[in-house]
């Protein structure tokens, strides 16, 4: 009896030791959305940490030196790119003294390098156009098509860094792709009756999502990116609402919703507050749930 108990506990101990907690790849990402995708692809073989939270505007994260400590030991840094993090990430990377995560380094992956961009500026590229992103719109992680490309790039880079687990990353990548494709069917079905309808958004954060969903942005609360809406602009949006039959305004929860509320008072449109990223609200706990919330919000905004 005692021998069986000892053997059983010894076996349990062995099992605990042999489980893949040997050396989890330490992946640091700039946003929670990227961290969520890293977790999908990496599973228990990676430890994903995000430098910012889903409740924060990713343009205006503080370059807190404590974040440099997180970068110091990173085995891989994944950032969005297209200047989204240009206001805070570069000095943290230099401060971290981690040579491989410098731009172009072996342990640096910029998600924007593997996705085709939208909103490439075709007019003047200067700040009279507001807070312009000259390399394209960086808010592409709301797009089920592009998130698969990003997941593929993450799997490829993880396989380079941790070749022993490469087959597992490929397996998880296929599983994630299958999950997204299955969910897409449901989302497309929900959105199909509303194809071609218009919404208004606060900032140009939903370009890719609307493109995928077959919807349009009739206008933006911000007259130019990063510029707060003056009353004259809100008034002109009221005319747009009537002309385009807009029923809803989508505002991320880190923006001030006062101007959207003014538009609602003028025209009766619904103001729908959405999470800005995974983790932006309690129900957006992983990437698929985040898209669930966005699709539901879109459907609400066009009815």
């Amino acid at each position, binding site marked *: 009896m005692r021998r069986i108990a000892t053997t059983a506990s010894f076996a349990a101990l062995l099992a605990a030791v042999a489980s893949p907690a040997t050396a989890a790849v330490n992946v640091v990402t700039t946003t929670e959305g990227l961290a969520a995708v890293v977790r999908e692809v990496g599973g228990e073989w990676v430890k994903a940490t995000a430098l910012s939270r889903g409740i924060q505007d990713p343009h*205006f994260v*503080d370059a807190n030196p*404590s974040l440099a*400590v997180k970068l110091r030991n990173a085995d891989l840094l994944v950032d969005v790119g297209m200047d989204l993090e240009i206001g805070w990430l570069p000095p943290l990377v230099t401060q971290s003294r981690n040579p491989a995560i410098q731009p172009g380094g072996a342990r640096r992956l*910029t998600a924007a390098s593997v996705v085709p961009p939208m909103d490439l500026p075709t007019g003047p590229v200067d700040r009279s156009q507001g807070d312009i992103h000259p390399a394209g719109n960086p808010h592409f992680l709301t797009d089920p098509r592009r998130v698969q490309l990003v997941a593929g790039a993450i799997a490829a880079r993880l396989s380079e860094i941790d070749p022993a687990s490469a087959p597992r990353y490929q397996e998880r990548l296929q599983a994630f792709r299958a999950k997204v494709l299955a969910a897409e069917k449901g989302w497309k079905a929900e959105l199909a009756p509303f194809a071609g309808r218009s919404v208004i958004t606060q900032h140009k954060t939903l370009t890719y999502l609307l*493109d995928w969903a077959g919807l349009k942005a009739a206008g933006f609360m911000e007259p130019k990116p990063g510029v707060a809406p003056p009353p004259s602009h809100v008034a002109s949006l009221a005319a747009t609402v009537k002309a385009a039959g807009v029923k809803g305004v989508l505002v991320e929860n880190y923006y001030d919703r006062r101007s959207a509320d003014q538009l609602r008072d003028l025209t009766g449109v619904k103001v729908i507050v959405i999470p800005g990223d995974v983790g932006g609200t309690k129900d957006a706990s992983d990437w698929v749930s985040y898209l669930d919330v966005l699709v539901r919000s879109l459907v609400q905004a066009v009815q």
Partner: protein
Amino acid sequence: MVNIVLLSLLAAQVVEPAASAPPPPSTAPDGAEPQPFPTGSYNVGTPGGIPVGKLMLMPEIAVVADGALGYTTLSTEQQELTAGPIPQHKAWPMLQEVELAFQATVDPYVRGDVFITFTPEGVEVEEAFLKTLSLPWGLQVKAGQIYSPFGRTSQLHRHQWTFVDQPLSMQRLVGAEGLSGAGGDLSWLSPLPWFAELHVAYQATSPGFAEDVKQLTGVARLIQYFDLTDEATLGVGLSWALFQAEAPEQWKNLAGADLYVKFRDPTSRSSLVLQGEVFGRQLGGQAFSEARWGGYGQAVWRVDRNWEVGARYDNAPAPVAFEGGTQEDWTALGTYYTSEFFRLRLQPSLVLLPGGQTGFQGLLSFEFTIGAHAAHPF
């Protein structure tokens, strides 16, 4: 020649097909699978800078210009040992500074940063240094013309100052424009789970207002940051500078302690920063007990993306004419930001000099940045 190439590349980008149509397939390396979604041909994913600029391997260039209208009731004598004194009782327009910044990675091992300032007093190299990127053991070397790793506010460039001017306690006890000079700064990021960085520097600096006299200086600083909560961070710094004093009126020892607390609402642009520093300076001919002390405390509230208000109390040695006395300044600040690249500041202050003398100063300043997007200071 460079401009024509740049313009034709920009033109090529402008006549790209509309954003929703995928761009033509890029040439994939031999043997690689053709991508279902071709990637952009201008390396659009690289972080920072403009794609075409990176293609040309140009540094990031920025220009910051700072102008002000100043008014003071203080006399020249009462403004001695103050950077940027102005004529009494006049609304005096000034170009405070134009800073030119050139920043780039030199190679995988080193980056280079050069900052040139133009002021009414002339042209100066504010900083020009190399910084290593890949030393082992958490080390980093910054060498060239550098700000000494001393204190908190003395290391900041003008466009990083919250207030229109530096506290007088810093000007008179540390340096008119902070403490800087040619030399090197070796820093070590400790393996502790919080941010703890130790700096050791060796430079030739001109502390105080003695511009032409340089002293060999050794500086050490320990700076630590603790995240008290998700929304509050505490920074604690201790600094020491040791000078080779060849005359009794030259600096010998300088001690500094600084405290910084930031409360930041993550769901908005609002934040509250409390900051204070204490300086103690011993001259060559003095005993430790004769060291002069001074310091400041400030509170700055960033209300939202457009507005910021602040208040500062400054306790400094009084100007030369008030031998041994102490000066107190009470300063208020209101800032309006039209964007991250332009701010307008109004800064009135009440000056209390020894012997019951008082003065009033007002500064109205604008500052704009063109070119590369500078990182926001913490």
